[in-house]
């Protein structure tokens, strides 16, 4: 958005000029500098405390709203106000550290470090006669409480979901995997927004080279702001022009935990409840966490059903068009006569009819997401009446077409991964055009091209169709069918001495 704007250039210029300004000796001067740099923001609060007849003075600075006023008052200001120093100025800093009841205290020496600490919500104590500053972690941003997931719901299984607060999110996963091997590496991305990004993986299960690759790609991101995980996703995914999801996103902590146990890497991004998971394989997109929470037979059945739903969402309109415009011989006679009767009064060619319906549905769907909640019922009435009844009665489209489009729509909603539905939506139109041109022959040719494209995809070194292509017999237990849990879950005791790493990169 702002990536190449002048603002960014100015900032980087300014930074390079004065990237390491040492702090001044007096608190008052330092405060003045901070105020200058922050443009004397209205929410910047500073407080001077003087002791022993002005012998020692401190300045406490923080930004209101992103730091906890209560903690500052109780654990910083109160000890400081009642503090009686007996030592000289040289070890005052040590003494303050002993006085203040804040767990995370850091010592900073440059103005820039102090500034970034202040804008991230920390409280800074500047001491008279000292060129160092104490940075106290008092970050507290008002955030949503943990609620039920809204986009990835299950019948049986944990009901919590991620929030916009990155610390809450990592805590939700840490609570599930209480292992010393769970690693969390943090970094900041976004030159302006300075968004916290944290990588989580389990040492010993995750493949080190993939972890390294993820870190490298994250480091290489050059962007001014990260407002949602998709910003990061765009930078780190392997193929930027594929319609297939190359990074999985989820708002469920149990999904992240499960993926970590499978050797994948989670990327937490501040300010969004969606956590990214890499590397991605195609088969993984058909798995719902509930597969594992229910009986294995229903789990396997549902997984096959989802695969069917995906194929339906992809192919239903294309195959229908191909059948009725090119291969009438393939339709059972009674059905063909019935469809022919419906098409009698339709003035448009079948392909135009298909486009009218598909587009109407897409518009309805988009409107359903964007409209104000209050007009929802009005939209659904109009949508149902127009799409279902009136369009057929008016002779715009045939009833068979309405069925095909509805089946397609329902099938695309049955997918556990919203991204996959988007893939099906894009490719569906391509197949539709090809089908009207070249019939099933064209559909087959397009499918081959799509298949070839999928075979060529890699996600962080892992083939996209793994473990189907390249075929790994031992890994088939969690692909089309979900075998019983003891078969698919990693059992470290049995794997002793063997390599425990789950995700293998291409050999």
């Amino acid at each position, binding site marked *: 958005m702002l990536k190449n704007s002048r603002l960014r250039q100015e900032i980087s210029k300014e930074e390079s000029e004065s990237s390491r300004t040492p702090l001044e000796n007096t608190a008052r001067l330092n405060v003045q500098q901070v105020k200058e740099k922050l443009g004397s923001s209205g929410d910047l609060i500073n407080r001077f405390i003087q002791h022993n007849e002005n012998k020692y003075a401190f300045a406490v600075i923080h930004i209101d709203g992103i730091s906890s006023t209560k903690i500052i008052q109780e654990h910083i200001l109160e000890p400081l106000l009642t503090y009686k120093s007996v030592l000289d100025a040289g070890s005052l800093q040590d003494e303050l550290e002993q006085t203040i009841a804040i767990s995370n205290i850091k010592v900073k020496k440059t103005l820039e470090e102090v500034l970034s600490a202040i804008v991230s919500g920390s409280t800074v104590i500047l001491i008279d006669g000292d060129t160092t500053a104490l940075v106290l972690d008092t970050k507290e941003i008002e955030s949503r409480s943990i609620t039920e997931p809204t986009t990835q719901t299950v019948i049986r299984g944990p009901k919590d979901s991620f929030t916009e607060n990155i610390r809450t999110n990592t805590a939700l996963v840490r609570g599930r995997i209480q292992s010393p091997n769970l690693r969390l590496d943090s970094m900041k991305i976004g030159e302006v927004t300075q968004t916290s990004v944290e990588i989580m993986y389990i040492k010993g299960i995750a493949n080190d080279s993939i972890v390294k690759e993820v870190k490298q790609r994250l480091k290489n991101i050059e962007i001014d702001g990260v407002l949602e995980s998709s910003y990061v996703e765009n930078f780190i995914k392997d193929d930027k022009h594929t319609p297939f999801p190359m990074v999985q996103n989820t708002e469920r902590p149990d999904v992240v935990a499960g993926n970590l146990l499978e050797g994948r890497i989670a990327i937490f991004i501040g300010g969004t409840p969606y956590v990214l998971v890499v590397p991605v394989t195609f088969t993984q997109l058909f798995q719902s966490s509930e597969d594992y929470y229910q009986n294995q037979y229903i789990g396997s059945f549902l997984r096959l059903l989802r695969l069917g739903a995906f194929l339906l969402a992809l192919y239903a309109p294309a195959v229908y068009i191909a059948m009725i415009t*090119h291969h009438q011989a393939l339709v059972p006679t009674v059905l063909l*006569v019935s469809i022919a009767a419906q098409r009698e009064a339709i003035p448009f060619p079948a392909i135009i009819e298909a486009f009218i319906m598909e587009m109407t549905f897409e518009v309805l769907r988009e409107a359903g997401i964007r409209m104000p909640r209050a007009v929802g019922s009005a939209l659904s009435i109009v949508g149902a009446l127009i799409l279902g009844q009136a369009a057929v009665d008016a002779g715009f489209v045939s009833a068979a077409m309405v069925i095909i489009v509805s089946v397609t729509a329902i099938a695309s909603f049955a997918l556990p991964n919203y991204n996959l539905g988007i893939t099906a939506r894009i490719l569906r139109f391509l197949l539709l055009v090809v089908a*009207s041109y070249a019939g099933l022959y064209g559909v087959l040719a397009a499918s081959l091209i799509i298949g070839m494209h999928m075979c060529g995809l890699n996600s962080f070194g892992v083939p996209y169709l793994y473990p189907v292509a390249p075929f790994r017999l031992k890994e088939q237990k969690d692909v089309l069918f979900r075998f019983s849990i003891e078969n698919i879950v990693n059992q470290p005791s049995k794997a002793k001495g063997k390599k425990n790493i789950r995700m293998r990169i291409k050999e």
Partner: protein
Amino acid sequence: MRAKLLLVTICLIVILSGCSNYKELNELAIVLGVGIDYIPDKNIYEVTYQVVKPSENAAKGTGSDSTPVINYEATGKTLNEAAGNSANFFSRQNIYSHIQLVIIGERLAKKESLNFIFDIFERDAGVRVNVPVLIARGTGVKTTMDMLSTVDKIPVQALSGKVKNASETLGEHGQTKIYEVIEDLTSEGSEPAISGVSVIGSKKVGARKENLETMEKTFTKLNGVSIFREGKLVGWMDGKKTKSLQIIDNKLKNTNLRFHCDEKRYNDLTINQLKNDTKVDIQNNQAIITVNTKAYGYIVELLCNKDISKRQIIKEYEEKAEKELKKEITDGILAAQKLKSDVFGFGEILHATQPKKWKESRRQWDHFFSQAKVNVKVNVSIEETGMRIKPYPY
């Protein structure tokens, strides 16, 4: 550059190729039945097309309550010419992939021959050859196809349903499909046998909407099996002996067998499993045909009041049933022998089992067949007697 070239190529392919095979459904006439007849004086074929009217057959009626199909005739020196000429009669292009039945006129079958009629069906990839064939017996082809029916609204669909039903439950009429006719015509050791269809009732009423509203309907009825020799119809086989065709072909699924239990009355069996083994040999310049049939069935109706809990009664019934079934088979073979037409495919059996002897006799196989000695062995076993065992007390 490469991307641009690819884009241009794709555009060219899309624009220049066009939709060669693209046919809108509402520009097509779906042909469900084809009738073929021959006018010897003019030496032309007369082809009847039965085209469905979609709106009359839709689940939700939008039609104007007229006939569900349209039959129209076109003529030509070849069948394809006739098909081309049909464009003069009809506003939409015919598609033949949904043909359900082919009806051959008796004139064509007798005066011309079937030899080359089915070539177009086999040659054209868009037509199915697993479609049953019938011979219009005593009535014109178009008239037969005109007879409206009620439950299966489309006349040819009703007819093909009748063939299927009769072959599965009665066994007197087989579903002779186009490819089977072609096989029989092209092979030396067998001849086709095709069921016939006649019209029962007033032909004028049958062709009108009236026929659907009255209870005195005009029906089409399967009537006998036509016997061919060298592609020409030479005679008809009627009645129960037509079962022999299905029995020897091992195609019989279900049939009923009535036999005398005393002088006046009959019992009835349902045969639900039947195995036949045929052997053909030539000895002393005479063909010997041995038919060995094993049939399993159950009693469905007893009109003689006998105690069937006794083993000997069952045994007696079995023997009588064997006699009856043997008669049906022998009669069938005799009828075919009289017409010198090997509709059973005994020649094929000889060809497969004793190729040397076949080679010597194939030239005069018709003669060998008509003079053949026929041994029929039948074994019927009654496996069930139904829900009642005790005889009635009166």
